[in-house]
């Protein structure tokens, strides 16, 4: 089964003359358990696609299905139990005045779990933080630790699909490695489906099996990771991206 099916998705902002089409005729499918990457430069619409799936953008048209169920204009609690999102900047996405415990128990409470206490312990262990972190505030954590808390928060409702919006771009390379390993482990353990947005081809190539390249709101190419590694891109823009990221390494 496909975890996610997107057909002819359009997203726009503004009306009339001020209308900007951020995403144009985007279609792709993600099989359950797969890991799908969206790459492109800033303004290419890659994050907007994720936000549209998560229900954070009201102005869209087209067809989106999650686990076979079509999405309407509003999202149901069931949707949020299936799909969760991890945001780019762990410095901005955690409430500065709530402890880790409070953040996690709120989510667990909203989803109707009863054994909150033991679940928080397990969640923190799952993301590689000990129970010692439970009563800390975000400012008492490093960037990598915050992103682990953000991942724990996303995992709390036991979702099937995780939307990852540049989950490591605010982190150091050494911490990035830890988070990428964690994400790979969690996916293997829980059989999760990932849709990851990044501008770093190395990161996407490491975690994803299939990659869509976006430019000015359109998907210009979808290719498998082997093809990308072998630098066999067809579209000139993909080639340009590959060259600039390989060029930066050498």
């Amino acid at each position: 089964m496909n975890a996610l099916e997107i057909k002819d998705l359009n997203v726009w902002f503004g009306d009339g003359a001020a209308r900007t089409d951020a995403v144009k005729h985007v279609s792709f499918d993600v099989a359950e358990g797969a890991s799908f990457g969206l790459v492109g430069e800033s303004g290419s619409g890659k994050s907007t696609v994720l936000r549209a799936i998560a229900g954070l953008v009201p102005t869209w048209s087209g067809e989106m299905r999650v686990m076979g169920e079509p999405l309407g204009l509003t999202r149901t609690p069931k949707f949020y139990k299936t799909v969760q999102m991890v945001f780019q900047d762990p410095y901005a996405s955690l409430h500065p005045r709530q402890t880790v415990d409070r953040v996690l128990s709120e989510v667990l409470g909203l989803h109707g779990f009863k054994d909150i206490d033991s679940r928080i312990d397990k969640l923190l262990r799952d993301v590689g933080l000990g129970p010692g972190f439970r009563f800390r505030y975000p400012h008492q954590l490093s960037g990598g630790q915050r992103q682990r808390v953000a991942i724990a928060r996303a995992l709390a409702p036991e979702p099937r699909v995780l939307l990852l919006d540049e989950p490591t771009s605010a982190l150091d390379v050494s911490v990035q490695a830890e988070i990428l390993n964690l994400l790979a482990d969690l996916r293997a353990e829980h059989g999760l489906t990932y849709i990851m947005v990044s501008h770093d081809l190395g990161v996407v190539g490491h975690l994803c099996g299939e990659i869509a390249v976006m430019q000015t709101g359109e998907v210009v190419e979808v290719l498998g990771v082997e093809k990308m590694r072998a630098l066999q891109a067809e579209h000139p823009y993909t080639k340009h991206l590959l060259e600039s990221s390989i060029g930066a390494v050498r």
Partner: protein
Amino acid sequence: MTDASTNLLDIENLWVRFPTRNGIFDAVRGISFSLGRERLGIVGESGSGKSMTGRAILRLIRKPGFITADRMEMDGEDILNVPETRMRKLRGHKASMIMQDPKFSLNPVMTVGQQITEALRTHEKVSKAEARKRGLAMLDRVAIREPERVFDLYPHEVSGGMGQRIMIAMMLIPGPEILIADEPTSALDVSVQLQVLEIMDELVRERGMGLIFISHDLNLVSKFCDRIVIMYAGRIVEVCEAGKLHEATHPYTRGLLNSVPDLEHPRDRLEVLQRDPAWREAPSVSALL
């Protein structure tokens, strides 16, 4: 370079310290390095003291932080004890700094042109018309296609990559001999990163300047530098030639190299740094020339 004394920078035993409630925090702990007419890379994680080192060279450490050193010389001139008025002359004229994010380091209420000509006219007596002419020429040098149009734009009207090129133009127009670039491209897209770096590189070579390139990206630094200093916890743990980076021996350097996901050489698991407390205590390696 005629002899050793004409190094652009000579810094010995530099400490950057911040008094806190729990005693003094040492951000940089006794490092020594020099800069010839070369491109020197400073690499390390957040908190390793690399940015503080860059700021300390221009004496831009905010109070209550302070600097101590045995010797700090810029082009043979002592910069440790000179008064602030002299330091203001040196900043921009002898050494300037490109900051990380153009969004936060360009003045939002001045046009691009005003900012560039201000930088020039602070250090040189030139007429307004002459300043404009040189500003436009400089914008052209940093590959901005329509300099005349961009000259009158405000920073929010230009893209990130353009903003960073404008910063480079602004920093280079007074003709400094040392350029300190603190993560100049980490706020930019991959597709424009390389372009911005190449422009910077070209200008630095052309003018025979010294470049200090601060970054957490080892591979990027090895491409644009001659010599690399690797910092950990406020000390230098290793110094190596950029071309021989892959022969680096310090476990920290190796760990940093191996933790980067590489598109062409995929691995199942990325290597995670195992930090050894002994690295913190090991004496700083000297990077003096």
